[in-house]
């Protein structure tokens, strides 16, 4: 316990501000809090320890010891697995602490991976990385619920994402549909965490990892018609932003709300990317197949995002107009316009980014959040920088855009100044 608090309590008792009884209650409260936090730290170290030992075993086995006979190597394959299972079994039977369960669960997770890897080595079993990862993930999935282990959820998300990347981007170039099922299997645990421990660090980590995993994997779903990829990503970021705007997440600190941050950054990034004229001319023109998997995925995501937006509206969650929430609808519209007139849609996208920047400045100013305010200014600055590279546009058009951006800066600065002045006069 903090020595300053101890000193203060003594002083308060001496001055008869609090009774001795209250003093002892305060002391015991701080002591229990301290014990709790040291437990947490111990859990983190135990999990890290198990992870390192588990990975170490995998690496040692990956040496492929030639001098050992096949039988001996097979025994080695099963030894860590059985030790891990015994530890987890003991933790469950004796209902040991969370530290025990987390650490033994993580060890077993890696032991399963090591044992399948070694058997594959011994018999030169074919199969790419994705099929190996899938077997591993499936064999360890039930452990999350049996041990109520959060460390295992993090590991599973990381491995499920690597599986989808391996299948979709690297080895197979196939659509990783199983990824969706695997991720859905983690949702009950996540839901429980959101309900029971929304302020726990582990919940915040998952609030970041889940959307991040989606962002990484989504490209693997755009196989046959890459041009829809831009549309799909803008809609995905719109969906994430709107999830982040649900009061449950929105009322939390920004660093706990991965949906909102990723959604916002992603939307701006994608819009900036599509604000280049050459991209539309080089990639998009006349190469859209509306009867493709990519288009149907875009459509499904759009419906989902729109449904969430409507639900938020009906629930009266949306009080003020925030363009970030609607950016994906506008982009869908501009995407359609680009089929007829690409130049017009590029101008509209540039305008959209500019307004988004101004909106961010406005939100930052209104909530006195300097991070958001600077973010808005940064969007506008990057937009200006990007336009320097677009030499294909006519000078008049570029000039007009620059004037528009310049006016935007004046307006935002004016608003900021005005806010500061009113604040000063209020004081």
């Amino acid at each position, binding site marked *: 316990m903090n020595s300053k608090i101890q000193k203060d309590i003594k002083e308060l008792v001496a001055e008869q501000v609090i009774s001795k009884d209250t003093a002892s209650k305060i002391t015991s409260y701080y002591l229990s809090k301290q014990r709790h936090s040291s437990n947490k730290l111990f859990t983190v170290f135990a999990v890290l320890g198990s992870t390192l030992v588990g990975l170490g075993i*995998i690496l040692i*086995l*990956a*040496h*492929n*010891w*030639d001098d050992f006979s096949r039988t001996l190597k*097979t025994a080695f*394959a*099963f030894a860590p*697995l*059985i030790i891990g*299972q015994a530890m*987890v*079994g003991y933790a*469950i*039977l004796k*209902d040991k602490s969370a530290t025990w369960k987390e650490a033994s669960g993580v060890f077993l997770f890696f032991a*399963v*991976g090591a*044992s*399948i*890897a*070694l*058997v*594959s*080595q*011994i*018999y*030169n*079993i*074919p199969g790419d*990385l994705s099929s*190996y990862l899938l*077997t591993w993930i499936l*064999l360890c999935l*039930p*452990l999350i619920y*049996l041990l109520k282990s959060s460390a295992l959820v993090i590991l599973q998300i990381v491995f499920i994402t690597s599986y989808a990347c391996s299948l979709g981007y690297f080895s*197979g170039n196939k659509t990783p549909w199983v990824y969706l099922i695997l991720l859905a299997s983690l949702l009950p645990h996540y839901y429980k965490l959101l309900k029971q421990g929304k302020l726990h660090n582990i919940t915040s980590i998952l609030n970041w990892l889940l959307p991040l995993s989606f962002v990484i994997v989504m490209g693997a779903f755009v196989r046959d018609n890459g041009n829809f990829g831009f549309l799909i990503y803008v809609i995905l970021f719109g969906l994430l932003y709107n999830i982040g705007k649900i009061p449950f997440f929105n009322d939390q600190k920004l660093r706990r709300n991965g949906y909102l941050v990723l959604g916002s950054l992603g939307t701006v990034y994608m819009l900036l990317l599509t604000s280049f004229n050459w991209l539309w001319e080089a990639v998009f023109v006349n190469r859209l197949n509306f009867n493709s998997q990519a288009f149907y995925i875009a459509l499904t995501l759009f419906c989902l995002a729109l449904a969430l937006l409507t639900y938020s509206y009906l629930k009266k969650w949306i009080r003020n107009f925030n363009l970030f929430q609607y950016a994906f609808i506008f982009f869908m519209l501009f995407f359609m316009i680009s089929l007829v007139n690409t130049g017009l849609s590029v101008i509209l996208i540039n305008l959209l980014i500019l307004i988004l920047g101004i909106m961010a400045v406005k939100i930052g100013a209104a909530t006195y959040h300097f991070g958001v305010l600077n973010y808005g200014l940064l969007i506008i600055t990057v937009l200006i920088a990007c336009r320097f590279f677009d030499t294909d546009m006519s000078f008049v058009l570029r000039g007009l855009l620059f004037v528009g951006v310049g006016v935007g800066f004046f307006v935002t600065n004016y608003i900021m100044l005005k806010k500061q002045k009113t604040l000063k006069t209020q004081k």
Partner: protein
Amino acid sequence: MKTIHIFTIFIMVVLIQLFVPSQMIFNQELILKKGKVYKFKTHPVDPTDPFRGKYINLNYEIGSYKTTDSLWQRNEDIYVYLTKDSLGFAKIDTIGRTLKSNNKNDYIKAKAGWYSSYSNTLSIEFPFDRYYMEETKAYNAEVAVRNRQRDSLPHNTYALVYVKDGAVVLNDVIIDDMSIRNYVENGSSK
């Protein structure tokens, strides 16, 4: 849920976790015991797998087949029927999209690669292109094979593959009638 229920489910999970690698071992052992052995002429190179360690990648000399059928899709399942040439090495008898009941030869389930309409050949991806080796030996093995191919002696690097009902186990890679592990160990590459 009561502890005993959780524990019961856990025991089931344990059994599945033990069953999967055991089943893998059992299947491979069965092929090694009951399967027929074939020699595939090969050229190895050494890549790495992040979890399973170093292996040599085997490119087979019979990795393509001349056919006028140009409708093969990449990664499509393909049944490769085997026979042996006069020197006892594996040779492709025929290939098909489905099993051929009138063909009594051994077959391997493989994947179709690229079809070249220029040479009318289909490349075949055999499911036994990885041979795991001790990490220090894999690169040496590749060098040994390369050196061995440069000299004037007849090329006799081959993979020993057991085949049973379409399934295969790659048991060893042989250079000069010697397992590649021993070949590298004995310093024959020098």
